[in-house]
């Protein structure tokens, strides 16, 4: 019982994840800044931002539905934190696992977006409503390629459990190299999920202020921002587990270092991609996802089908 509580709240649960999330945000911002020839924030900046937001007064719009407005961020955070328990981090096998947990993780990662939609919609501001509608529209375009990407890797491993996948790739080293196309597809789709450029359409600052977050302030905004950061770590961990499953059998310290490197690599890829591209329009994003990403994902799926036929 105590063990479960510790693992949920402290390690590798909420507290550890929060620290990692702030570190990931710092890495993202710092890399983004250095790519643009700027100095970037100091290491404590994400934490300072968080403390500042927590200390500020919350304003809830008069027209907003207060219950929904307050509950949406909490749900989003819970869903994002929960999903980490099913992802193998630095060893084969996650904290909890069962057949089909890959699907559960993908669905848990969808909940924050839906919560952003609900929170934005019920704050009844025009900007927030446009932003939340955009968030859901974007969901329909990136979710499918992300699923197909993960599916292709799962198919090669012949299991729907993330832990099972890591065990398979540990037994068959270098097989993960077959999934590189899928990795690219899933990484691009992850950009959409994290609302990072070029897919930062739901919170496009110059068009709709902060999208669904426009009316949020104080603690609730802190929770929302934390959710995005945790999503980034969870997303990076998921990609690391599914597409980069190597170096998982060393001792925990080396395994942990390798894990951090993988997360950092995914974060750096995200930073680079948002540095070199302009924000797309929502119609262009849908077109891009369905015209290029989905066919690429299906191509990966076909390759893996063939591989399975040839090898096994």
């Amino acid at each position, binding site marked *: 019982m105590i063990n479960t509580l510790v693992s949920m709240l402290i390690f590798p649960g909420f507290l550890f994840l929060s620290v990692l999330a702030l570190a990931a945000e710092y890495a993202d911002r710092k890399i983004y800044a250095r790519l643009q020839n700027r100095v970037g924030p100091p290491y404590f900046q994400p934490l300072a931002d968080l403390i500042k937001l927590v200390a500020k007064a919350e304003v809830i719009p008069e027209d907003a539905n207060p219950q929904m407005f307050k509950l949406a961020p909490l749900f989003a955070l819970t869903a994002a934190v929960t999903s980490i328990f099913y992802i193998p981090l630095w060893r084969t096998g996650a904290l909890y696992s069962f057949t089909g947990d890959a699907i559960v993780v993908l669905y848990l990662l969808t909940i924050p977006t839906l919560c952003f939609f609900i929170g934005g919609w019920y704050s009844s501001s025009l900007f927030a409503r446009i932003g939340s509608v955009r968030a859901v529209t974007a969901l329909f375009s990136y979710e499918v390629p992300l699923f197909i990407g993960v599916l292709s890797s799962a198919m090669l491993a012949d299991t729907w459990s993330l832990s099972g996948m890591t065990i398979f790739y540990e037994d068959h080293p270098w097989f993960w190299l077959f999934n590189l196309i899928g990795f690219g597809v899933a990484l691009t789709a992850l950009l959409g999920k994290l609302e990072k450029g*070029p897919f*930062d359409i739901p919170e496009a600052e*110059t068009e709709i202020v902060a999208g669904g977050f426009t009316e949020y302030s104080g603690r609730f905004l802190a929770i929302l921002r934390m959710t995005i950061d945790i999503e980034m770590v969870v997303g990076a961990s998921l990609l690391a587990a599914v597409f980069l499953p190597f170096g998982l059998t060393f001792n925990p310290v080396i395994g942990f270092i390798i894990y951090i490197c993988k997360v950092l690599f995914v974060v750096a890829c995200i930073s680079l991609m948002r540095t070199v591209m*302009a*924000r797309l329009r929502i119609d*262009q994003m849908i077109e891009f996802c369905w015209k290029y990403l989905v066919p690429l994902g299906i191509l990966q799926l076909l390759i893996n089908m063939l591989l399975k036929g040839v090898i096994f």
Partner: protein
Amino acid sequence: MAEEKEFRIPIGPQHPALKEPVSFSLALRGEKIMGVDVRLGYNHRGIEKACEERTYLQDVYLVERICGICSHSHSTCFVQAVEEIAGLEVPKRALYIRTLVAELERIHSHLLWLGVAGHEIGFDTLLMFTWRDREVVMDILAMLTGNRVNYGINTIGGVRRDIRAEDIKEILKAMDILEERTKYYIEVATQETTVIQRLSGVGIISKEDAIKLGAVGPTARASGVARDIRRDDPYAAYAEMDFNVITDDHNDVYGRAVVRLKELLESYKIIRQSVGNLPEGPIAVRAPRKIPAGEAVSRYEAPRGEDMHYVKANGTDRPERVKVRAPTLANVQAVRHMLRDRYLADMPIVVAAIDPCFSCTDRLVSIRDMDKGRTDVIEWQDLRDYSIEWYKKRGVDFSRMGKIK
């Protein structure tokens, strides 16, 4: 309208896409813009009236502050009109220096625009890079005139600061750096897929509409209307310069970006000519304090388009009337036209594409007496007292920092 399920979304007076207060009220259906309502005037400072109450020399500094970016445009345009009324023969060297500063200003304005355009389409990297390179020209301007903006180089009858031989070397060096960078940005703007996706086909205005709606500057030139005051109605030393008027027939935001970037290359050409052929001689003639009665219209190709000043003198040391028509005012109708039937996502870049400057446009809070302006100070103090009290209740004492009355 109600049955068509349109809703109105306010963009401004305060909005992240706008660098200055202006209000667009957009009627939206989904993401599509069905109608646009523009409300200007938030920056009305009463400058035209204030000009009538100051001497000509003071007015030079006042009109310079109509706008921060095209400050040289307004001050040159104004002094040209006054010089014409007074019949002053401005020395050639002064005209060359004015031309030089004007082109440097155009470079810094166009680079600034490119950065802002990048920001509006969510491409902050372009913003950071262009603004970094813009520092080169800002440093040159500071070296030549003494300040980065509001150069204060013009005076009635000439210019206030001379150029030294070592400055010329620095200018030429900077031009080489900037030319190389500009060529790189032309490549980025014309090759980067996401940029082209966001710029091309957006904010279209045909040649006929551009003429009909009275568009000026790069907005008109990107629709194939070769309107350029520097060539059509030469002032300063432009009659002796060899340069091309850049036009483009894309008619959209992409075209406007290309026109501005190519104009930069022309500006480097003009600058090299003006420092190369810089005549020797005095830089100013003495101007009388009282300007004889008369009127003059002065036109100037500001980075954003045609700037026009009308000055009427009545024989005293103060003008009878100063009328300023800044380029953005002429382009407002064009923006309204461009936004119709576009997506909400295109709004920021379409508005930014005319390089709007609403400070220029609105010019004219009122010319209240300096001493009566005190009310602001008291409010500020009240606010300060309030915040100190607020923090005191929470255990933080800021009152020791600075004295409060």
